[in-house]
């Protein structure tokens, strides 16, 4: 489990993996031929990774434990605000803290809120939890919007530093950054390429670490109890499992992962405002998890990627005038149709969870993970 080992593949998964390979190759080709600008591609990769984190976080709550959490945007926003308030030059309360430290600020804030939201709502079931969590998420957004003495209100926070801004070497690069080999310049990278690249490195490390962490807990007896709770909480209770505690753990873990996505977002986009807590983000993350395959970590990652592909890919539609419909509604319609078609073609998601999740190696020599 030390490498990013993705286990064995079913034939169906092989198809998906093959498709991804082809897609990756195409993207690379597009960059090499100059069709796709590297800075833009890197931005898209960063954005996808952010959605991957959000979907993995939601998958812990919904996919493992069946908790219908509609407050994704709030945890995302808290992560973003947590780090922004601590680091941004425009912060009304503090600012100037190193992003590495602020990271924990964002996570801490999210953890506290997860417990505060979770405590009353996790006792509710199904859709009741959905609406309660959505409501509390709105309370958080409204608070951030209106308490401008602490949050800068609707104006949002500007002056957020790059994540690596105070690191040795990385923080001191000058732009355009020229890479020499034997005295001759080989690369000439603009700031946006370099910073995007660093962001992608950062987020890749985060995504990989989160994935490996989740993989382990998902295959464990802990994950199994959650899956039991998902279909039948009473059953888990009779078997002596403290379902509330399990749910709370999953809720907090999921929320922290979402907050991580928010922290990353802050340092990617360098501006946060209460708008970033709009429920629409929550819906997109839900779509990502379902399209990817509820209960599957790989599916959640793929779903995060898919949603960005749908959102951003449709940007390249241009209004040709050939259709009696403007580009914006056309795009909206396409996003809608794509969602419908994916559910139609893959009702269980693109990469549904494995049929069985058992702690690796415990099945004896017969099966290798």
């Amino acid at each position: 489990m030390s490498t990013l080992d993705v286990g064995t593949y079913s034939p169906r998964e092989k198809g998906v993996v093959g498709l991804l390979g082809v897609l990756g190759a195409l993207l690379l080709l597009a960059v090499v031929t100059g069709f796709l600008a590297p800075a833009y591609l890197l931005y898209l990769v960063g954005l996808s990774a952010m959605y991957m984190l959000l979907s993995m976080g939601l998958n812990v709550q919904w996919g493992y434990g069946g908790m219908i959490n509609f407050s994704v945007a709030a945890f995302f926003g808290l992560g973003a605000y947590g780090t922004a308030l601590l680091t941004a030059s425009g912060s009304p309360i503090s600012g100037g803290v190193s992003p590495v430290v602020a990271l924990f600020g964002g996570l801490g804030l999210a953890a506290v809120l997860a417990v505060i939201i979770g405590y009353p709502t996790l006792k509710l079931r199904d859709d009741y939890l959905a609406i309660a969590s959505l409501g509390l998420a709105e309370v958080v957004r409204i608070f951030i919007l209106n308490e401008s003495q602490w949050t800068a209100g609707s104006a949002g926070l500007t002056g957020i530093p790059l994540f690596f801004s105070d690191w040795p070497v990385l923080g001191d690069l000058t732009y355009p950054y020229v890479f020499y080999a034997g005295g001759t310049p080989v690369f000439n990278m603009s700031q946006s390429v370099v910073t995007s690249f660093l962001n992608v490195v950062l987020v890749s490390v985060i995504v990989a670490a989160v994935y490996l962490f989740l993989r382990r807990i998902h295959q464990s007896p802990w994950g199994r109890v959650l899956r039991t709770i998902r279909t039948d909480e009473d059953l888990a209770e009779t078997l002596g499992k403290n379902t509330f505690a399990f749910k709370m753990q999953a809720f907090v873990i999921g929320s922290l992962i979402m907050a991580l996505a928010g922290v990353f977002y802050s340092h990617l986009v360098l501006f946060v405002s209460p708008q970033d807590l709009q429920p629409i983000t929550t819906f997109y993350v839900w779509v990502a998890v379902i399209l990817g395959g509820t209960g599957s970590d790989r599916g959640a990652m793929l779903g995060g990627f898919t949603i960005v592909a749908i959102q951003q890919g449709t940007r390249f539609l241009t209004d040709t005038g050939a259709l009696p419909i403007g580009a914006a509604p056309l795009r909206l319609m396409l996003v809608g149709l794509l969602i419908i078609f994916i559910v139609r073609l893959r009702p269980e998601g693109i990469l549904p969870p494995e049929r069985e999740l058992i702690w690796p190696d415990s099945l004896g020599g017969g099966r290798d993970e």
Partner: protein
Amino acid sequence: MSEQSLVSDGPILGKDDPVLRAEGLEKRFGGLVATDDASIEVERGTITGLIGPNGAGKSTLFNLVSGFYEPDAGYVSVNGVDVTGRKPHQIADQGMIRTFQTPRKPEGMTVREALLVGPHNQTGESIIPLFTSPDTVEQEERRSLEQAQEMLERFEIGDLATQPATDLSGGQMKLVELARGMMAEPDLLLLDEPVAGVNPVLADKLAGFIEELNEEGITFLIIEHDMNFIMRLADPIIVLNQGSVLVEGPPEAVRSDERVIDAYLGGPSE
């Protein structure tokens, strides 16, 4: 049990070493009194039967003692600990596990996974040991898996181990429900009609299995309408009627008690 005497009117209380003690339990649903001043004691080491007509309140009694319903009055203790009003998992922690009359079917799991949820207090159910002592987790998991497979074989559904737990016949679901309860290895196991819908040949074998487990120290309280099964296994048998205990006594005596025949067994068939 040494008691060869006649059946007792109402419950026999004051047993030496009861695992479960329920006193004066009352549960109302609107106007309906489902259990009414019901008291029972389950002596350690016994297989106690609980029978009674449909709607007598047997399942309700299980729900009360296992913490699923809040009693309107009364008191429950398990292994001497007062558990009245506690949450189901807290009561389970005291060593009492129950099964459901209508089997629960966990989605998205295979049959053996569904069984692996059974064992109590697994190391791998906490997150930190997953990273600090993965070997322990692995060993436990290996042991549980073996046990699960063994259990499934006994229940004649060994070949279903890796089937989805939802794709089962009615009887098979009951078997999984029962096997999972047994995996927990509690002090006291409450079974709600374990062999309803189970093939009689298999039911006989299961009776043998329950006897074995009983000898290994598990106490049972079993609701069952299958007279063969319950008469063979249980001593004493408690008869519940209209929400309270009608009689309690050894199987043969209970079987021939007039009141029990009236309320439950029915007259000889024509």
